């Protein structure tokens, strides 16, 4: 019987990976945000004229009101930790050694928080409501990691 034959099979593992390269166009809006970090060490958000909210990361159109117009507004550089986690176990997505502190940081003048990391401090000393400021990389390339992390202010 075929059934019995299959019972004696030791299944193979077929190892592979999907290696598709990606080139994500940042678009005009994100490009302006990233260039301001790279060239001036400044953080900018966009303000919706209808609801008045300042969004960081910046948006080309307001996701709430759906209006097509927004204006730029300088935010930060200081901000407040909204929530955070200390990654203790090395997970595959994490590029560096653990512990790593991921946090949502509301920059001064912004209505939304941005995701980044907190460094320069004992992870056990991080707390919600803590004041932080960006530490910029020496060499900046127009990338979100041009901010190395946020450090205590």
């Amino acid at each position, binding site marked *: 019987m075929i059934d019995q034959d299959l019972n004696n099979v030791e299944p193979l593992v077929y190892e592979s990976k999907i290696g598709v390269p990606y080139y994500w166009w940042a678009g005009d809006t994100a490009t302006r945000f990233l260039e301001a970090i790279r060239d001036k060490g400044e953080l900018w958000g966009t303000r919706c004229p209808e609801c008045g909210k300042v969004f960081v990361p910046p948006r080309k159109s307001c996701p709430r009101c759906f209006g097509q117009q927004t204006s730029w507004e300088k935010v930060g550089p200081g901000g407040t930790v909204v929530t955070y986690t200390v990654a203790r*176990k090395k997970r595959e997505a994490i590029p560096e050694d653990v512990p790593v502190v991921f946090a949502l940081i509301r920059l001064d003048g912004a209505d939304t928080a941005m995701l980044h990391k907190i460094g320069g401090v004992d992870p056990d000393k991080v707390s919600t409501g803590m004041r932080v400021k960006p530490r910029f990389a020496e060499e900046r390339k127009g990338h979100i990691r041009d901010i190395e992390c946020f450090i205590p202010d």
Partner: protein
Amino acid sequence: MEKVAIVGVGMTKIEANKVSERFEDMVFEATRKALDDCGMDIKDVGNVITASNDFWDGRTISCMAVGDAQGVREKNASCTEGDGTFGAFYGMTRILSGAYPSTLVTGHSKGSESVSSLITNAVFDPIYERSLGVDMVTGCAMQARAYMEATGATAEDFARVSVKNHKNAMNNPLAQLPMDISVQDVLDSEMIADPLHKLDCSPVSDGACALILADEATAKKLAKKPVWLKGVSFCSDAYFLGDRDLAKSPSLEKAAQKAYAMAGISDPGKDIDVAQVYDAFSYQELMWLEGLGLADYGKAKDHLAAGDFDVSGALPVNTAGGLLSGHPVIAAGLYLMAEAVRQLRGEADNQVEGARTAVVQGVNGVAGQSHCVWVLSSE
């Protein structure tokens, strides 16, 4: 309005690593069981919906792998993403539209074949977030902390969810992690991402689930007592975690209100007998129960401690063990719906006496961005 029922359910055992079965083997098993459950022939199934995800499956057009296993060749077919609750929704609309008398909905996942951290890292924005290395676990850990600080919930409260659900799984022969553990065991388990310990997190799992939905005329001819789909709604919050108040779940509240209105439920706390909610992480069971209006905000932990969510409690929750006991991601919502069906038929492993109305909730995105809420009833 035409009534639609779930008439057949089929599930594979949920396992850490199904080395002998590929996607199509799992889906065939689940489909075969669902057909047998209601005494239906594949030829009589009106149309087919797959719930699958190309990232998790490592395959573009991932639904293509399972078509033969669903008997799709002569039928109309489509594919949704999300956790299976969304696929069931689309399957229901295809009956209500008058196009088909019945829909087969299948969902499959093999977490064992991919790296969940990388798969869920790809949910984050490629320009602003992804390179930081955040994933589903660390994203949800930030939500867990926000919820703790807003409500005063503690690690012990979260641990109690894990203890209860793993215990419920002990009577479920299809569960991956039936375990008799203590609150201390959870607290002593490895810290993955503060405040989530290993036993606060659902495991990586393989499994497939199939549901057969049918209109009233079809349902009444089949073997099992129909379980009626009384209400459904879904809703998405903002995408960026920093746009949201992570301690709250407004999109779930909105979806629940609409689903209850459709089902004619005015007092969910009173009208709902059993709940199956998306406990990918322990804290989520508490948050989602509150979002569903089944506990006041910040009070679910007290109901839990009082035993209200136990199988013998006032509102049993995740009676088959929930996702903490086995989490085949894209099939998970269908497993929760299948358990609700078994409860309402009176054939569950941890049967809730007299259960007539159940709520099921599914999730899409990180930290409960989008929710799908179902109300099922035996009447």
